[in-house]
């Protein structure tokens, strides 16, 4: 169990952090919550740890979202987060472009319905269709349909963002 947990921790930690980051939009908070998820996993010893990890992570992120203070920080971080922790110092131009790209994706993701967004993020976190179905309550066969819809809507919304930006610049 110890070795299994270590392997799970090594292979899943980054995915859990990324999954949480896309919900709370705070890198430090996402890491804190991810560590909390693994601490709880050690205490509970779930039978299906991988699906359990993301289920708990989703619950923690939901709790975070309910806090009003959380929302305020969210708005602040929308402007300055991932760029606030770069591993290298980009040029100011690159920095601005990168900020715009991130904001465009965030806005596009925000146009999805909560269920579509949840399933898209779970898939991107590496969960299988049956695991996604088990966590969201969907039928396994409906996961593909939902994913297809979510991907198309995300890309379409992102395209509209680009068109709007170009129109604004021109």
């Amino acid at each position, binding site marked *: 169990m110890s070795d299994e*947990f*270590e392997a799970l*921790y*090594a292979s899943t*930690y*980054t995915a859990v*952090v*990324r999954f949480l*980051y*896309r919900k709370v939009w705070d*890198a430090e908070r*996402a*890491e804190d919550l991810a*560590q909390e998820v*693994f*601490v709880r996993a*050690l*205490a509970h010893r779930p039978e299906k740890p991988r699906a359990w990890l993301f289920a708990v992570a989703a619950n923690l992120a939901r709790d975070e979202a309910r806090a009003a203070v959380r929302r305020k920080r969210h708005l602040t971080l929308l402007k300055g987060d*991932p760029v606030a*922790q*770069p*591993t290298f110092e980009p040029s100011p131009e690159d920095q601005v472009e990168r900020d715009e*790209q*991130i904001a465009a*994706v*965030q806005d*596009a*993701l925000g146009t999805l319905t909560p269920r579509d967004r949840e399933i*898209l*993020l779970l*898939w*991107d976190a590496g969960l*299988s*269709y049956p695991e996604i179905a088990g966590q969201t309550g969907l039928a*396994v*066969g409906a*996961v*593909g*349909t939902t*994913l*297809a819809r979510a*991907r*198309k809507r*995300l*890309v379409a919304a*992102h395209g509209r963002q680009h068109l709007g930006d170009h129109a604004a610049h021109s």
Partner: protein
Amino acid sequence: MDGSTWGIMPHIPEAELHAYLDQALNRLRCVEIESHLADCTPCREARDEIAALRDRTTAMLARLAPRGTLAPPITEIRRRAAARVFQRERFRQRAAWAASVLVALGVGWGGASYLAPVSSVRAVAPVNSGPATSPLRTDGGARLTAPSQTIATTGPEVSTTEPPALERRPESMSHRLLPHHAPHQPTSRPDQSGPAEFATAGGTQSDRQAEPVGPWRNPRWERAPEQASNTAARTEGRPGADGQAQAGDTGRKAMMVVTQQLKSGEVVRTIEGPVSDVAALFGTRPGEASESSASAAGSPGEAPAPVGSTFSFRHGDRMLSAPGTLPSDSLRAMMRRLNLMSRVR
């Protein structure tokens, strides 16, 4: 090629192509789809579009990832988990302890509520029903007789069938010399036609009416002088543990009973009041007390005269008695106080 010309298998649904690219299908279905794709150009084009959409979605989401994520050591996670388990266990232990205390309190309260009425009845019942010559044990071991008045003690150990006994318990001061009268009960004072009223030092008249007759539940020395007299006899230098007063007739001062504890641990009680009342309380004939008061050397008061083991002083119509053994300095102090009282009168 479309589904109608292909014949055997229609075009692959879009959702299934997503599942195929996401590797969410079993191996058999994957073989079927790949066979179809080999001969169906529209499905191949659809697959390529979906693959591009999938890759683009993945690339977009990849931008929404914190940079430089580094997992902390697994030991840190284990340490936090162990601390969490320890805290949970400690909380459980404290909760169990608190619950046991609450249960104990509940049992104690319930038991006290169940037993309290029995205790009060046992303490009250025997006081006036004893024989005329009830032997009373004082702190000094003297045996007094109380032919007409009564002396009650508090505590459930007083038997309902035996004469009331005043046992020595100096450490708790739980036994108290208590002239026992109900507020509405007539007394046996020979020089008093009306009913006498006892005033306890701890409560108002209405409180006393509500209390059962017998035990003195909340005596306080601080209020005792208010009930009777500020010149109540007592051993100087020692705090009063109890004070109890019996109101007299109009124009007469009350009979006062003061209980104190000496440094040695002995409980001393002094009773001061009308000669007839005090004498009756201790079974002393007024004549005996007056005879013993003749030799007060150089003093307007009276000399101490033991009656059994009870010291008595008499001045005029007032008498002071102290059952048991009193220190000599206390005796002198009492005599001075009595003399002072006589001058005041």
